[in-house]
């Protein structure tokens, strides 16, 4: 069967919902299917409602659908909140719950399993979700071999007994389904290709940071950026990388900038609230011309907002944050693979242009599981630029850290180098780095920093146009909305003439390219995960184009594919 299948597992926090979902996702991935895993959870350790939704298909899948095919309801709330999401002919697996609310869904298949009974038979109540997953594996038409492998990988460190118990639980759930006659959804067991991985964008970002030679990551935990710190912490000893947990975000960026100032590739990461605390130091990186990568994974804001939900509300903030004016990069990847490559570029760009690079993610990217296909580990080469060796320094005799150059970039001597002693100065400064308030030098230094812009624009990759060059409708979006739009376009097929302009390197703004695409566009639809359409406003500011058709969502949820399709169809 070629059809995509959407499976949702719902239950109370603490039931192991996310782990279960990921085990299933990895099993399907290893069987050769593409998967996209999306989790919803409240900001609680226990209690509250958790879900993990897995969309899986033979072809690419990068987004979540509103409608689902299989619902594993581990509590009544899951049924009440998500029962109506079931497609006609959908399957509900539950443990003696009242399903009257969803009886009206056509051809609903009601699988009432005594999960707890079987879990206890397997050896422990904790295996209840594994029993349910065993049943799902049967419904999918797969055997348990790959699933068991995943159990070993996931629970191996808990000992043989635990793995054996989980395997037994899966088998009991799987066999129980034999008495129900349900057509299998998926059959293929081709196996995944070497070089393919399943990762969140946070995991991909962390791997990319290691690959880029990042040697210091200073951060303070904040959802949804924290898992970057987890991954790096676990791998730090293998790569001479120091993960330093600071007392707050101000210290995090300050520590990173200190390491960067002595020549280390350094970064910090947080969410919008933490970034707000970092803003003054962002300006310090700018005026001292210190290369720095700052990762910001957006969540639903302002203030505490919806801490575990998604939004694209920080774009304009990233572009404008800080008193004063200076050039910076703002890079917003659209999926985990882009995150892996672009974070490496971010380090190269920061070092080449000696300025802050903001790497903008969001909860949807940071915590969803993506398939990364044909990952090219050495695609982005490390380019170390802007340094000066000891001999050259000594020959110079009159080293100027902030030398006024044609392109605004001056060579960096690093603390420790004999002939390069200078002030890395937060005050406006002269070419040597000494503080000055002279009007001509102030103007010259501002101009120096802004001279970099031209080359920055030339080096940043342009936004990509997906689909035909000429179309009846052009969808415009940035960052994480990519998945929903790409999948929507694939689903509606060639009979609709739609293309898609996706922005990733957003600042400096690629005005030329955007203008060109919009000039030839017949009709434009902006899709953005925020209240006001910040990209649309930016486009107006930078190109003069007014995007009137704005499809905006700001309820903490990502765009579901169906709503994007419905919206697109309104315009064609």
């Amino acid at each position: 069967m070629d059809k995509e299948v959407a499976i949702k597992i719902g239950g109370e926090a603490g039931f192991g919902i996310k782990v279960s979902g990921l085990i299933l996702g990895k099993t399907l991935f290893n069987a050769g299917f593409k998967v996209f895993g999306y989790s919803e959870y409240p900001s609680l350790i226990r209690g509250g409602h958790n879900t993990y939704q897995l969309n899986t298909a033979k072809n690419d899948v990068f987004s979540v659908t509103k409608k689902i095919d299989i619902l594993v309801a581990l509590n009544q709330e899951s049924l009440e909140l998500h029962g109506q999401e079931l497609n006609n002919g959908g399957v509900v697996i539950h443990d003696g719950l009242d399903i009257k609310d969803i009886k009206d869904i056509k051809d609903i298949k009601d699988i009432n399993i005594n999960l707890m009974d079987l879990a206890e038979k397997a050896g422990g109540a904790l295996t209840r979700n594994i029993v349910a997953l065993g049943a799902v594996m049967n419904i999918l038409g797969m055997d348990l071999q790959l699933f068991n492998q995943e159990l070993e990988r996931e629970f191996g460190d808990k000992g043989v007994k635990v793995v054996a118990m989980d395997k037994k639980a899966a088998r009991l759930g799987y066999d129980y389904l034999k008495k129900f006659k349900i057509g299998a959804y998926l059959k293929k067991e081709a196996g995944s290709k070497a070089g393919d991985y399943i990762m969140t964008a946070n995991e991909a970002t962390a791997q990319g940071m290691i690959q880029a030679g990042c040697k210091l990551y200073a951060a303070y935990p904040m959802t949804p950026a924290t898992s970057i710190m987890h991954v790096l912490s676990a791998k730090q000893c293998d790569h001479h990388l120091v993960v330093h947990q600071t007392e707050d975000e101000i210290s995090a960026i300050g520590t990173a900038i200190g390491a960067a100032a002595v020549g280390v590739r350094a970064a910090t990461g947080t969410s919008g609230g933490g970034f707000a605390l970092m803003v003054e130091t962002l300006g310090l990186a700018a005026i001292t011309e210190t290369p720095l990568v700052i990762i910001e994974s957006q969540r639903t804001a302002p203030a505490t907002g919806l801490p575990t939900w998604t939004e694209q509300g920080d774009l304009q903030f990233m572009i404008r944050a800080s008193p004063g004016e200076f050039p910076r990069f703002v890079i917003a990847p659209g999926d985990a693979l882009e995150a892996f490559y672009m974070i490496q570029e971010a380090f190269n760009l920061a070092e080449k242009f000696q300025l802050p690079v903001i790497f903008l993610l969001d909860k949807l990217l940071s915590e969803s599981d993506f398939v990364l296909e044909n990952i090219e580990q050495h695609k982005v080469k490390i380019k170390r630029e802007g340094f000066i060796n000891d001999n050259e320094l000594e020959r110079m005799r009159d080293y100027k850290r902030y030398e006024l150059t044609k392109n605004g970039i001056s060579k960096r001597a690093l603390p420790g180098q004999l002939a390069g002693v200078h002030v890395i100065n937060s005050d406006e400064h002269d070419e040597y780095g000494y503080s000055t308030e002279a009007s001509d030098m102030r103007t010259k230094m501002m101009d120096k920093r802004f001279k970099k812009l031209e080359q920055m624009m030339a080096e940043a990759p342009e936004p990509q146009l997906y689909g035909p060059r000429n179309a009846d409708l052009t969808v415009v979006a940035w960052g994480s909305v990519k998945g929903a739009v790409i999948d929507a376009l694939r689903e509606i097929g060639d009979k609709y003439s739609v293309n898609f302009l996706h922005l990733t390197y957003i600042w400096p703004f690629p005005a030329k390219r955007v203008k060109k695409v919009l000039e030839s566009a017949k009709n434009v639809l902006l899709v953005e995960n925020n209240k006001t359409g910040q990209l649309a406003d930016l486009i107006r500011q930078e190109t003069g184009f007014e995007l009137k058709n704005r499809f905006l969502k700001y309820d903490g949820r990502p765009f579901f594919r169906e709503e994007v399709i419905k919206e697109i169809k309104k315009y064609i």
Partner: protein
Amino acid sequence: MAVVSAAKFNTSISPTWCPGCGNYGIWAALKQALFELNLEPHQVLISYDIGCCGNGANFTRTYAFHSLHGRAIPPAVGAKLGNKNLVVIAVIGDGGAYGEGIQHLIHSARYNVDITVLVHNNQRFSLTTGQATATTPSKTVTPTTPFGEIKKPINPLLLSLDSGASFVARGFANDGQHLAELIKAAVKHQGFSHVDILQPCVSFNKENTNEWYRSVIYKLDSHKYKADNLLRAKEKAEEFEQNGKLPIGILYQQERETYESQIPQLAGEPLCRQSLEGIDCLAKL
């Protein structure tokens, strides 16, 4: 010709501090200490706060990172983690060390990173014309406390002792030789060193003058006072509140593993010299 005195730590720029400012004494003591430690300007990174003491970035010839108000410690920590071969010092005023950025003092003391924090404590925000800071005595009249300061001042030495600092000392700006010895000991100490330096502000602090300090200060006698006991150190730190006397010298020194020494990734070459060749991030996935 090579300069063979503390003058090698001078830049071409002359200090802009007020005549009689305590900063001159601290500046001279710092340069003398670096000289006596046989350090060269390029081996030292000083992270400066902003304010009067921060302006020292322009007058003192070492690598300097002139940071933000209250934020001199985090870049100092980052620089030390990035290049452990550097001697890293943070120069901060009482406003930045005990007010705006107080958390950085507490936490870097707690994890015992090997940096030296020199606090120019003149009990005022002087560059901004003399407002009260966290160390301004109660009842003091300043532009922001026209009816006298209501708040109780912080005791910075008690604070760092309680935070786990492994070297805590108090010096006096106008006793240069004594202060230079303290700074030398602080820099030599492996771990977090905090030196609170009492400093007259001739423009905005008319109470705590040079003469006043000289009437209340006494030097700890190293034969009589042993700096190895935390409780005794705390008593000494609180002496002013008890009997109006200000002991100067090393109040506390403890041998303790530094933060860096417990990070295995820092065992070999400094981070800034690690090769970026042949990285294989996916190897162990």
